[in-house]
């Protein structure tokens, strides 16, 4: 596991490393401030950032954008603000937050954060795929309806025609359907 720790407080950063003892293989890189190019070279599996680090906004913005640097981000807060941990997680805030720094908990927390991150990424990919599938099915349906109307065909026949076009041209059915709709639009003077 490659862990990047960003914390202005060196002593506390050392606690994170201590808590990870026994994880094999393990590389921990501690930095007082976030340095993007340095982080890119280090390629961490997980980033741990202290709540009082001003660099949190930079890390937070990576999460918002889809720019490749997406990584699970774990945030540690001080013992003085115990509520932030559980409440923030419950409120669904971006970072996984932990109160205090009990060294024995570090490893478990990082593992949870990473699996949660993988899950969220999987969910996002699934959602994007589902949305794309739905969009292409709508396109195919519209093309099919147009063929049925123009050629006076039953649904299976219209579908077969689209599939044949798709196979003949070696292109996905949604692409064929979308071209078909565009051309039909031009012919009817809509475009």
């Amino acid at each position, binding site marked *: 596991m490659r862990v990047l720790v960003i914390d202005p407080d060196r002593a506390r950063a050392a606690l994170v490393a201590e808590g990870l003892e026994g994880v094999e293989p393990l590389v921990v890189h501690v930095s007082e401030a976030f340095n993007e190019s340095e982080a890119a070279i280090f390629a961490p599996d997980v980033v741990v950032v202290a709540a009082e680090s*001003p660099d949190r906004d*930079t890390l937070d913005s990576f999460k918002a954008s889809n720019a490749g640097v997406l990584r699970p981000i774990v945030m540690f807060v001080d013992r003085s603000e115990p509520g932030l941990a559980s409440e923030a997680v419950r*409120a669904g805030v971006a970072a996984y937050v932990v109160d205090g720094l009990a060294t024995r908990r570090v490893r478990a927390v990082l593992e949870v954060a990473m699996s949660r991150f993988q899950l969220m990424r999987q969910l996002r990919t699934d959602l994007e795929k589902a949305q794309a599938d739905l969009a292409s099915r709508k396109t195919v349906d519209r093309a099919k309806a147009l063929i049925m109307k123009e050629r006076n065909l039953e649904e299976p026949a219209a579908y077969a025609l689209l599939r044949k076009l798709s196979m003949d041209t070696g292109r996905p059915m949604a692409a064929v359907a979308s071209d078909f709709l565009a051309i039909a639009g031009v012919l009817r003077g809509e475009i």
Partner: protein
Amino acid sequence: MRPLRLGYVALSDAAPLILAQALGYFTEEGVEVALFREASWATLRDKLAAGLIDGAHILAPLALAMTAGVGCDPTPLSVTFALEPGTAAITLQADLADRLPEGPFAHGLAELVSRRAALGASRITLASVFPLSLHEYLLRDWLSNAGVNPDVDVRLTVAAPSRAADLLRDHVIEGFCAGEPWNTLAAAALTGRIVARADDLAPGAPDKVFALVETLAAEKAAAAAIRALYRAASYAQAEDAQGSVSEILSRPAFLNVPQATIKSAMAAAAGSTAAHRPRQEDAVWLLGRMRRWGQLPADVDVLALAQQTYRPDLFEAAVR
């Protein structure tokens, strides 16, 4: 009764909160306030969402986004006080600024960008303070008005204002848009030059506001806080108060920046008249920027969101 817990980020437009606390106005108006300096907007947002603070000096677009549940679970906030506009500015690395014509516009940047692309050089990297901020929109509009596509031709990133001067010096970024006193600080260190101020680009554009969680906004304590902020803001406007205002802000517990820097930042940003009544037109304008730059889902009702979040009625009831 427990004190009202308010957060802020170290910026000169947090002055009313800091002054109201330092000068005892909150107490005089009948509310005890615990003031927390937050290191980042993300942490401030999370604390509001988690109920660890009751209100804050906050980026106006972030307040709207939190109410709508963009970027976090819906956390309805009520904006009851508009903070001073005109403290945002765009600062570029001195040698980049040298290659652009004088004036607050980015003309010439498009040419520079395409020349760099032709040479295979890396894209110009510019930073704002948070994706949901006036600074982000000023920077994006400034670029696109000059024919530079902010999503393609340059690289936009986010940097904490307190880091911006160092990042400029180390060539990590080549420019940034942030609130004062951080532009003045970079200029004083000769690493950067201020090329445009918010008042050049979008006069009177809404920047930060004071917001409370919706459930507390109509409480007596909230009204007392608004009155204290109003007094503090009026005090800060007075010509002869500049010395003491900048002294208070410069303290290590607050902005922790040299008093002279704050003084000159305040002088440079002055001129925009501060109207503290939150205007729903401002919210609609910001939501328009958010929509233009793809931050607002299509199904958000802009007018309803503006009316829910911006509460001029609560401001008026408090200061009347």
